[in-house]
C-alpha cells in the first residue's frame, strides 16, 4: 500500500513537500489502524512526526487529513482506505512539523467561550440536583475531545480563523449554556451574539460530517442561534 504524506521540517524546508512511503501487504493486518501503519512508517523514517497518545479515540491527539477527510488515525482502519493514502495535517492552521499543527488559535477560541461551569454558591453537603432529562441535554456536547477535526474542516473558520469561534468552541459554549447548573446562561448568550463569533456559521455541516465522536456541532450552533433569537423576543 502506498502512502503520500506531507512533510515539513521548519529547520530545512521553506514549504511542505510530499514523501512517498510503501508498506508491504504482509505488514498490514486486517484490523490495523492508520496509527499502527504510521508507526511502521516511522520505523522506515524516524523523522516522520505526528501526535498520538491514547490509541483508542478518546484523547484527540492524532487528528489529520486522510484522503481529503479529517479523522483520528487511531480509529481509522487501513483496510477501509483507498491506496494511495494521501495524508496531510489538519487544514487551516499553521504547521509546526509534518502532521503536527499549531492549535493555539483553536484553544484560544475554546478559552474565550468560558468553558467552565459557573454555578450558584457551593454546598459540599449536597450535590446540585439535576434530573435525568436535564442531564440528557449535555449528551452530544460534553463528549468533545478537542481534536480539532471539526473546526479545521470548516470553511468559515478557514476564512476567519481569528474571529469565528469555530464549531468546537461553540459546542463547548452550548454545553454550558444548556447545563441546568450554570447560572450565567444570559451572559453566555450575550457574549456569543456577534456577527463573527457565532453567526459566521453558514450551516455547511462539514463539522458534523468530520466529528470522529459522531457529535453534531452544527445542531448545537443552531440551538445557540435560536436561543439568542428567543432572548431578543422576550
Amino acid at each position: 500500500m502506498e502512502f503520500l504524506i506531507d512533510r515539513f521540517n521548519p529547520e530545512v524546508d521553506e514549504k511542505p513537500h510530499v514523501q512517498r512511503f510503501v508498506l508491504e501487504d504482509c505488514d498490514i493486518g486486517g484490523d490495523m489502524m492508520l496509527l499502527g501503519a504510521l508507526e511502521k512508517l516511522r520505523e522506515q523514517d524516524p523523522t516522520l512526526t505526528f501526535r498520538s497518545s491514547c490509541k483508542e479515540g478518546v484523547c484527540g491527539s492524532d487528528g489529520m487529513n486522510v484522503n481529503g477527510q479529517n479523522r483520528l488515525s487511531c480509529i481509522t482502519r487501513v483496510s477501509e482506505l483507498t491506496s494511495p493514502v494521501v495524508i496531510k495535517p489538519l487544514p487551516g492552521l499553521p504547521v509546526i512539523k509534518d502532521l503536527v499543527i499549531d492549535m493555539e488559535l483553536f484553544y484560544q477560541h475554546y478559552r474565550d467561550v468560558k468553558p467552565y461551569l459557573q454555578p450558584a454558591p457551593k454546598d459540599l453537603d449536597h450535590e446540585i440536583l439535576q434530573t435525568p432529562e436535564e442531564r440528557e441535554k449535555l449528551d452530544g456536547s460534553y463528549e468533545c475531545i478537542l481534536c480539532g477535526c471539526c473546526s479545521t474542516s470548516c470553511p468559515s473558520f478557514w476564512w476567519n480563523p481569528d474571529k469565528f469561534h469555530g464549531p468546537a468552541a461553540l459546542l463547548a459554549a452550548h454545553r454550558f449554556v444548556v447545563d441546568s447548573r450554570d447560572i450565567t446562561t444570559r451572559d453566555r448568550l450575550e457574549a456569543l451574539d456577534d456577527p463573527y463569533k457565532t453567526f459566521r456559521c453558514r450551516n455547511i455541516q462539514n463539522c458534523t460530517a468530520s466529528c470522529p465522536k459522531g457529535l453534531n456541532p452544527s445542531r448545537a450552533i443552531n440551538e445557540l442561534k435560536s436561543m439568542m433569537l428567543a432572548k431578543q423576543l422576550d
Partner: protein
Amino acid sequence: MTNLDAIDTFHFDVVIVGAGGAGLRSALELSKSDQQVAVVSKVFPTRSHTVAAQGGINAALGNITEDNWHWHMYDTIKGSDYLGDQDAIEFMCREAIEIVRELEHFGVPFSRTDEGKIYQRPFGGQSRHFGESQATRTCAAADRTGHAILQTLYQQNIHAGTSFFDEYFAIDLVLDDEGNVGGLVVLNIQTGQVQLLRSHVVMIATGGACQLFKTNTNAKINTGDGLGMVLRAGLPLQDMEFWQFHPTGVANKGMLLSEAARGEGGVLRNADGEAFMVKYAPHVKDLASRDVVARAIAIEVKEGRGCGPKKDHVLLDLTHIDAEVIKKRLPGIRDIGLTFLGLDMCDAAIPVYPTAHYMMGGIPTNLKGQVVTLDEVGKPQSVKGLYAVGECACVSVHGANRLGGNSLLDIVVFGRAAAKDIVHNLETKPVDHFDKTLNLSKAAERLNRWAQPQEKNHKTETIAEIRHDLQVAMQVGCGVFRNEESMQSLLKELEVLQDRLDLVRLHDHSNAFNLERLEAFELENLMGLATATVYSALARTESRGAHSRVDFTERDDENWMKHSLYFLENHQLRYKPVTTKPLTVETFPPKARVY
C-alpha cells in the same frame, strides 16, 4: 557538553510535572490560593491518560443503596491484600464523599438517578456491612468518567489562571548542593529549546507506566518519566512488584473494557460457555477484585478452556442485558467493540484477556503527598520541596491490588491534600530565595547522551526495537504469574537490553518536535522501572495481590507485611512496615481473602 548555564530561566512557587487528574486538581487548589504555579506536560492536558478512565469514582454517597465510608475503607484494605496503609485508606475513603460532590460542583456531568442525584453502579470488591452484600458505590458519567473529570479540571484551571507549559518534556529534577529540590530542566518539544524552571516546590504527577508491558491499556505516553527522575535523584521507588493486570482488556490488543461492563451485569464465559467465575469467587463471582478475576481468566486459558482458534482468551458476555442500558450506560466501550473488533456487544460476546493496566507502586509519599525516603537508620524522612501525587505516587492506598473506582478517587483526594500542604508551608514557613546554586549536570548529561551522532557508516539499532524487546521480556518474565526462574532470566535480559541501549545513537538530531529523541528519554525511564520491578519482585518470596508467584503461592504475613523500597544505586532494597493503624477507627487485621 551542553552548556546549561545560559538557558532561559523562569520562576514559580510550584512546578507540577504532569497534567492528568492529580496534577490538575493540585494546580487548581494552588492557583485558587494565589500561588504562582506552572504545569508542565508533554502532551496538551486533555490528552493525559486520565481521559481514558471509564467506569467511575468511588464514594460512599449512598445514592442507590445504603453506604458508609467505613465499609469502603474495609473493602479497600481487603482489596489491597492488607498491604495498603490503613491511615491513608481511611483518609481517602472519608474524603471521597465531599470530593466527589466538589467535582460535581466543578461541572462534571455525572449520570443521574431519577431523584437527580449522582448515578452510582456496583464495582468489583465493593461490599456493605464489611463483606456482607454487594455495594453500589462507583459514581459514573456514563463510561466516560475520566474524560468528564479531566476536562472539567482543565476547564476550572483555565478559570483559575494556571500557567501551562504544554508539550514540554521534563528532563530531570534539579537539586542544590544539599540535595534540596530547586526546580526542573525542561525541553520545549515544539522548538527543542531547553529551559530551567526554578521553583520552591516540584510536584511529580506523571501518572502510570504500563508501557513497560507489551499488551496494556495505557496511553503511549505512560512511560513513568517522573519515576525515572526520582530514581536518578537517588530516591527510592516503593512496591514496584505490584502491577495490576486488568481482567478485561480486548484480547491481543489491550484496550480497556471497563469493569463497569461487569458492574452493569456482564458475565465472563469460557470455551464451554460456562460462567466460570463462580468457581473462583462463589459469592460475588464476576465482581471479585481484579487480581482474582485476572488470575481466573489466565488459569482457564492455561487449562485449555480458552476461546477462539488459538484458545487464548475468554468472552465477556453482555448479550443478555437490555441494549438500551448498554447504549446509555456503556456507550464508550460499545464503541471500542465496534471500532476495533467490528462487534456490537449488544449482540456478540467480546474476546478479553488480562492486560497490564495500573501501577500500584511508585514514589513513596506520606498523606500530605510529600515524597519520603529512608534516612541512614531506616527512619522515613520527607524530601524538602518534593511532592508526588496520582498513579506515579505510592501513598499507599492500593497496596498489592487496586479496586476499580479507587484510582480516580486517589488522584483528586491526594492532589488536593498535597496542594493544601504546599499552600500551608509556603504561607507559614520562610522559603529559600531563588538564587541558590543548582546542579544542572545530570540534566546536561542526559541531553548530551542523546546528542551523540551516529558514527560514519555505522547505523545502530532503533529505540523502537529495544522498547519492543523490553515490553515482551517484561510480559513473559514478570506478567500475571512469575517465578524465580522467569525473573532471573528476565534480569539477564535487562542487562543485555541496557548494553544495547548504551550503543544506540539517534538518526534524527533536529530540534523541532523530535519524536525519536523523546522516545529515547522515555525508554531510559522505562528501563529504570523495569529494573526496579524485577529486583523488588524477585526478593518478595510470597504471593500477595497482583504479585502472584508460582513458586511461593501463599501470602506470608509474618515476613512480608512490609513495603519494598528500591534504590538505583547497587539495586539496593530496603523495607518499611505497613501502617496498620488507621487515623480514628480500629485496625482491620489481615485475614484470608475470600470473595
